[in-house]
């Protein structure tokens, strides 16, 4: 579904990605793990068009989308749930969700998806009139994911959905990620919580300072001694 080839990205003079190649097959969950500054978020931001690569290509469903504007990428079915949630704190939960569907004109279908998101996250329905900024961290993460789903994506990019959440909530979020995937949405997941990420993903890439250091089926990586030492605490 998504193929990235030798992608290079810089922030000014600082090179963040030194030629990353990866593949996200249709219907799968693929995860990118690695330490802070490895280039995980940069990869997602480049896919969604927020950053412009210096070189390399991004192909999605047969189209070369490397230089598309974010708007066009969203409309093509790629939705990015950014790191730190980035919800609109001064707007209500429901307004946030409706903004997620900004690129769509099919009102009836949007209403259906709103219902779907509320089924997935009953807590958001309870708080639909509340301002986004008044939600707890876990609720904000649910809102961010729900908002991402409102674009009805074929490919969902999730950046650190477990960040700052209690272990219980992390498990809840990950089980919802699996539910979303089972319903047909392909997922590219960026995580520092390598243990949880490798548990749900079918394939994984380990990034180190802007390069793919390791890659393989998630189960194999989870049992590889190298990964265990570096990311799973022994």
């Amino acid at each position: 579904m998504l193929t990235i080839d030798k992608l290079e990205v810089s922030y000014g003079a600082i090179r963040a990605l030194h030629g990353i190649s990866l593949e996200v097959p249709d219907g799968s969950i693929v995860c990118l793990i690695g330490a802070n500054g490895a280039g995980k978020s940069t990869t997602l931001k480049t896919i969604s068009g927020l950053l412009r690569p210096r070189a390399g290509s991004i192909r999605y469903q047969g189209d070369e989308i490397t230089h598309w504007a974010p708007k066009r990428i969203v409309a093509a079915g790629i939705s990015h749930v950014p790191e730190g949630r980035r919800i609109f704190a001064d707007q209500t939960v429901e307004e946030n969700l409706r903004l997620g569907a900004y690129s769509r004109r099919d009102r009836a279908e949007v209403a259906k998806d709103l219902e779907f998101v509320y089924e997935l996250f009953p807590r958001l329905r309870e708080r639909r009139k509340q301002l986004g900024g008044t939600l707890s961290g876990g609720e904000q993460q649910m809102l961010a994911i729900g908002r991402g789903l409102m674009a009805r994506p074929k490919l969902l990019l999730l950046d650190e959905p477990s960040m700052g959440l209690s272990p219980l909530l992390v498990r809840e979020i990950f089980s919802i990620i699996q539910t979303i995937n089972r319903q047909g949405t392909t997922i590219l997941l960026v995580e520092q919580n390598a243990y949880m990420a490798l548990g749900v993903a079918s394939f994984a890439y380990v990034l180190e300072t802007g390069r793919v250091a390791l890659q393989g089926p998630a189960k194999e990586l989870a049992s590889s001694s190298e990964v265990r030492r570096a990311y799973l605490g022994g």
Partner: protein
Amino acid sequence: MGFFQMLVQQLLNGLSQGAIYALIALGYTMVYGIMRLINFAHGDVYMVGAFCGFFLTADLHWPFPAALVASMLLTSLLGMIIERAAYRPLWNAPRLTMLITAIGVSLFLENLFIVLVSPDPRTYPAGVLPQHTFQFFGGVRFTLNDVLFWGVTAVLTFGLQFFVQNTRSGQAMRAVSFDSDAASLMGIDVGQTVSLTFAVGSFLAGAAGVLIGTVYQIDPLMGIMPGLKAFVAAVLGGIGIIPGAVVGGLILGEVESLVSWAGFSNYRDAVAFIILILILLVRPSGLFGSTAKEKV
């Protein structure tokens, strides 16, 4: 007239001046909200609006309502051109670069108009508006002009509030002003939204320019002081906050009117800047600004 009549009279005068500040302040605050830029050229857009109204009524003999609307459309076009030509190329430059550019655009417009229309003051043709003076409450007066100021400002302010709160474009504006990257990820075209914001802000400044032209003389440097005052009004209300700009503008108009009444009319302008200094010292987020921190 007794004390109370005088007071009411001064408050009414202040309301008319405040309405003008409010209309200009809205553009400042909207542009700041969306791109963190103090657009110092905004007062000059107001000046251009006044001249558009002048030429349409004096030379082309358009009826006033048509001239008002046409001037507003022309200034909104000007706002969009300024944004595209001067600010958009600097999107990734430091904020200070853009601020200096704004001052450059301001000087450019002022001097361009000095060359184009001469520095001489002009007066709108007599009879461009029907004249009428109302009296009530034992001698308090206001004119049809005042009613026009209040009415136009009220319609535009509530119209703007409706637009921002209830339309798709307004929703996009709020989203971009809160977090432009997150807005991009929603599929909102940030460039288009910024352009629209300049158009709307300049549209309001154009209205203020034409309104003021019906009462005072106009000249190419007329935008400097009201522009600065409107900036004070926007900061007073809380920069980036739409209702704040209106309230800030009205308060500033009233304060100036009361200061003049008290016999300190020489200090009218100084008072506005004293307010700016005080608000920056005491409550820099403005009357309506929140000091709440974001959750992490």
